[in-house]
C-alpha cells in the first residue's frame, strides 16, 4: 500500500489557484499521519513556473497540447493511468468547477471511493478521517477515509493557503502523457469577465452600506470613509436597487462574495443572502441601530450608534491615525 498523498494542482491560464495550496496544506498533515509523501500532480505547460512555490515533496507532471485548456476528457484520461499506477492513499482535487468534472468520473471508472465537500482531515489512532461540510454549511459529516485509495474533493476554509506554499521549488518528475486524440470536450473560446469597475471581491477593506444609508447624498460619507481606510464601498440589495451604487458593488448571493480583512457593515440588517457572501471575511464590524439585527450574529464587533453619526467621526479619526 502506498501512503503518499496526491494533490492534483488546479491552475487556469498560468495561475495556480488558492484551492491547490489549501490542498497541499491538508495533504501535509495527512502525509505526516501516514508517513508518506506529498506529491503534486500537474497537467500542463511551463511546469517550472507553476510548481515554483508548491509545498510538495515531489511534482509529477505531464505535458501535452491538450492541457493548454481545461478539458475534462483530457484530465480524466491522463489521471486515470497515474492513479492506477501509484495507488496513493488519497488523491485530492479541488471541489471546484474543474475538479468536480474529473474526480467523480474517475471514482466510477477506477471503482475508487470518493469523498466530496471535504473541509478538513484528522488522524485518529493512525486512521484518517474526513470532515465534510454539507447542507449549505449547516451540517458536518465525519467518517473514515476508505483504504487503500480514496479520491477527495476539497472545499476551502479548513486550511490557510499560505501553509501550502514553500520557498523552494520541489523536485520535478516527468510522466508521459497517454494518447489524447479525439477529445470529446474541447475549449473553443473564452469570454472575459466584465471589467471596468473595481472588483469588490478582491479588496482588503470593504465598507458596505445598507438601507440605513437613507439617501443617495449620504453615500458620499461612506466613500470618504472607504477612502480613508484604503478600501471600497459596496452595498446590499436595497442600496443597489435604488441605483445609489453600481450593480458591480452588490455583495450578496446575487452579487459578489467577498473575503476582505475588514468588512464594515453599516446599516445592514444581515439578510441570509447577504450573510452568505461575507462569511469568509476575516473580521466583520457591524453598525446597526436595531439590536436584533442578524448581522450581529456573525460580526466580531458591533455597535448600535447611528451610522450617519459614526461615518464622519470615524473618517476623521482614521485619517488622524494614518497621520494624514
Amino acid at each position, binding site marked *: 500500500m502506498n501512503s503518499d498523498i496526491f494533490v492534483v494542482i488546479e491552475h487556469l491560464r498560468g495561475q495556480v489557484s488558492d484551492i491547490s495550496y489549501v490542498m497541499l496544506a491538508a495533504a501535509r498533515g495527512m502525509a505526516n499521519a501516514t508517513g508518506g509523501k506529498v506529491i503534486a500532480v500537474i497537467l500542463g505547460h511551463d511546469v517550472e513556473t507553476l510548481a515554483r512555490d508548491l509545498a510538495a515533496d515531489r511534482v509529477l507532471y505531464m505535458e501535452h497540447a491538450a492541457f493548454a485548456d481545461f478539458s475534462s476528457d483530457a484530465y480524466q484520461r491522463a489521471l486515470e493511468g497515474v492513479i492506477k499506477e501509484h495507488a496513493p492513499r488519497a488523491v485530492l482535487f479541488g471541489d471546484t468547477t474543474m475538479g468536480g468534472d474529473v474526480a467523480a468520473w474517475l471514482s466510477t471508472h477506477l471503482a475508487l471511493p470518493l469523498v466530496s465537500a471535504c473541509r478538513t482531515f484528522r488522524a485518529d489512532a493512525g486512521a484518517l478521517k474526513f470532515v465534510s461540510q454539507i447542507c449549505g454549511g449547516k451540517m458536518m459529516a465525519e467518517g473514515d477515509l476508505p483504504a487503500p485509495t480514496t479520491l477527495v474533493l476539497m472545499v476551502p476554509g479548513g486550511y490557510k493557503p499560505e501553509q501550502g506554499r514553500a520557498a523552494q521549488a520541489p523536485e520535478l518528475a516527468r510522466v508521459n502523457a497517454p494518447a489524447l486524440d479525439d477529445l470529446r470536450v474541447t475549449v473553443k473560446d473564452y469570454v472575459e469577465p466584465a471589467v471596468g469597475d473595481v472588483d469588490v471581491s478582491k479588496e482588503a477593506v470593504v465598507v458596505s452600506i445598507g*438601507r*440605513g444609508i*437613507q*439617501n443617495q447624498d449620504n453615500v458620499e460619507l461612506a466613500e470618504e470613509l472607504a477612502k480613508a481606510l484604503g478600501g471600497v464601498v459596496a452595498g446590499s440589495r436595497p442600496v443597489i*436597487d*435604488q*441605483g445609489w451604487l453600481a450593480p458591480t458593488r452588490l455583495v450578496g448571493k446575487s452579487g459578489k462574495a467577498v473575503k476582505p480583512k475588514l468588512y464594515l457593515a453599516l446599516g445592514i440588517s444581515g439578510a441570509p443572502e447577504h450573510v452568505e457572501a461575507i462569511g469568509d471575511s476575516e473580521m466583520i464590524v457591524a453598525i446597526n441601530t*436595531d439590536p*436584533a439585527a442578524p448581522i450581529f450574529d456573525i460580526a466580531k464587533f458591533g455597535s448600535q450608534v447611528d451610522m450617519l453619526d459614526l461615518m464622519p467621526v470615524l473618517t476623521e479619526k482614521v485619517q488622524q491615525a494614518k497621520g494624514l
Partner: protein
Amino acid sequence: MSYDLLKSVVVLIALLIAGGVFGWRAYQLLWINLRRGQKSPEAFGRWGERVKGVLAYVAAQGRLFRVLVPGTAHFFIFWGFLLLSLTILQAIVEGLFAFIDPHFKLPIIGEFGPLALIQDFFALFVVIAICYALYLRLVVNPERYKGSHKSQGVMVLSFIMTIMLTLLVFNGIAINLHKDSIAAWRPISTLFGLPFAGLDKTAQFVVGEIAYWLHLGVVMFFLTELPEGKHFHIVTSVPAVFLRDLDPPGRLPKAPEFDGKLGVSTVNQFRWRQMLDFYTCTECGRCQDVCPAYASAQILSPKLLMMNLREHLTARDGKPLIGDPISEQVLWSCTTCYACDQECPLFINRVKTIVDMRRYLVSEGRMDAQLQEALAKLGRYGNSFGQSERNRAKWAATVQPKIKDARKEPVEYLWFVGDYASYSPSVVDITRQTAAVFQRAGLDFGILYEGERNSGNDVRRVGEEGLFEMLVEKNVAALGKANFKTIVTTDPHTYNSLKNEYPADATRNTQHYAELLDQLITSGKLKFSKKLDYTVTYHDPCYLGRYNGVYAAPRRVIEATGCRLVEMPRHGDRALCCGAGGGRIWMEEGAVKERPSESRIREAVALDGVSVFVAACPKDITMFRDAVKTTGSEARLVVKDLIELVNEAMT
C-alpha cells in the same frame, strides 16, 4: 318655398342625419362591442338598491361633491342639461312644425310658466358653471387633468355655452317681438333680449333666426360627437350607475379562463360590464389624483388605463392588450388600495380590471424575480417569508400561559394571526403584546399554530388565483378542525379575504382586532389602568377602511386610551395607502419619486404636536417604521400599533 317650410325641411334632414349618426355609433359601441364581452352577473339583481343608486349618485350627484366646487358646477350643468333638454326639444319641434305654425309650442313644456322660470335660471347657472369649468381647464389646469383630452373638453364646454347663450338670445328676441305668451316667466331671457330691443323687427327676427340655427346646429353636431369620447358618459352614466357592481369591493370575481389560461389578455375577454366602464370614464382624473402609484412614480394612472382600454375596445382590432398598449409595469404598479374606485363618481372598477390582467401575466409567468420568489415560497411554505410552517407559531413559545390550540380545544375567538405578525422579526413583539392584551381581557381565544397559512388576500390580488384557491383550501381545512364562534384577525388584508372571499360557513363571523377591542372596551371587559398622554394620528389601513368601512372602531379605541387624536388631511376613506398592498410588498420597488409611505409620514410630521403615528396593520408597521427612518423623522414621530397603545394603557 316659404322660409318656414324650408326651416322644417332643413330641421328634419339635420335631425335625421344627426340622429342617425348618433344612433349608429351608439349601436356600434354599446351593442356590437359590448356584446363581444363576457357575461356580467354582477350587473343584475338587488334592483331596489340600484334604483336608489341612480337617485343618489346620478340625480343627487352624490360622489361628485367629494371635490366640492367642480362637483357643484357639474351639478348645475347636469341639471341644467336635463331641464334644458326640454327647451332643446321645444326648439326642434318648433322648427319641425314651422311650416304649420312658426311659433308652435309643445303642450306644457313649451307654455308652462313655472318650468320656464326654472329653465331660465338654470340656463344662467349653466353659463356660470361653464365659465368656471373653462377657467378650471384653461387657467387652473389641475394635475388630475394631465393626460385627459383637453381640446375635446374645451370643445364640449364651448358647445354647451353656445347652446345656452343662443337659447337665451332667441328667447329674448321672441319676448321683444311679443311672440312669447309666458314672457313674464323668463326674466333672464328678457335680460338677454334687451341689447337687441333697439333694432327694428326684421333685424331682430334675423338675429333670432341666426341664434336659432346656431343653437340647433350645435345641438345636432354635439349629438354626432357624443359617442366619440369622454362626453359619452352623458349616455352611459345612468346605466353604469344602475348596473354597477354591487359585490363588496373586497371580493374579487373568479378568474376567467381562456384556452387554459387564467386572466384577460384581449379586450373581448373582459365582461361587458367592465367594457361599459371604459365608455363611462369622464377623464375627470379624480382617480389619478388619489392614486398612490401615480403619486410615487407616475407609471400607473388609473384614468389613462381606462382611456387606453376604451380606445382599444373602440378600435376592435383584437390585438393583445398587455405589453402594448398596457405595459406590465403599469399593471404591477397598482397597490389595490381602492382609492380610485372609491373616488370615482361613476363607480368604475379599476382594481378588479387590473387584477384580471395581472392574472394573465401570472399565467404566463411574466413577473419580476422577487415576486416569483415570494409566490414560490407561498406555494411551498404557505408564507412569503420562506420559513418553515412549523415555525409559524414560534413567536408564541414564550407567551405564558400557553395559547390554546384551537384545533384541539374549543375557543370563543379564533385568532388568525397572519404572515407578518407571525414571522416578521420587527412585528412579532407586537403580536406578543396582542396576546397579552387578549389574555388580560380574559378572552377565550386560540390560534391554529402551524395549521394556519397566508390567507391569500394579496396572492389573489397579485393574480395568482390557483395559489389563492390552494391557500383557501388549506385554511378552510384547518378552520374545519377548530371549534370557535368568531375569527379575529391581526391583519386587515387577512380580514378582508376571510370576511369577503372565504366560504361563509368556514369563517363564520370575522372581526378585525380593532373592532374586537372596541367591543371589549364598550362592554367593560377591557379596562385601562391609566390614561395615556399622547397626541396621535391614525392611519386607516386600506383593507380595513375603504374596503370594509371600519373607521370608527379604531378611533374609539384610541380615544379610550386617553390619547388625543389629530386627523391627517387624508384620512378616513381618503387615507393614503402605505404602498405595500396588492402584493407590492413582494415586488421590486423600481424608480420612485417619493414612496407613498414617506409621503404619509411627512403628512403626519406636519401635524402640530403629533408624536405617535398609530396603525392597525402589521404591513403598515413595517412600511412606516422604515419611512420614518428614510425621511429622518425619528426625533419627531414613533410608529405604534393600536395594540401597543392599548397594552400600554393597561399596564
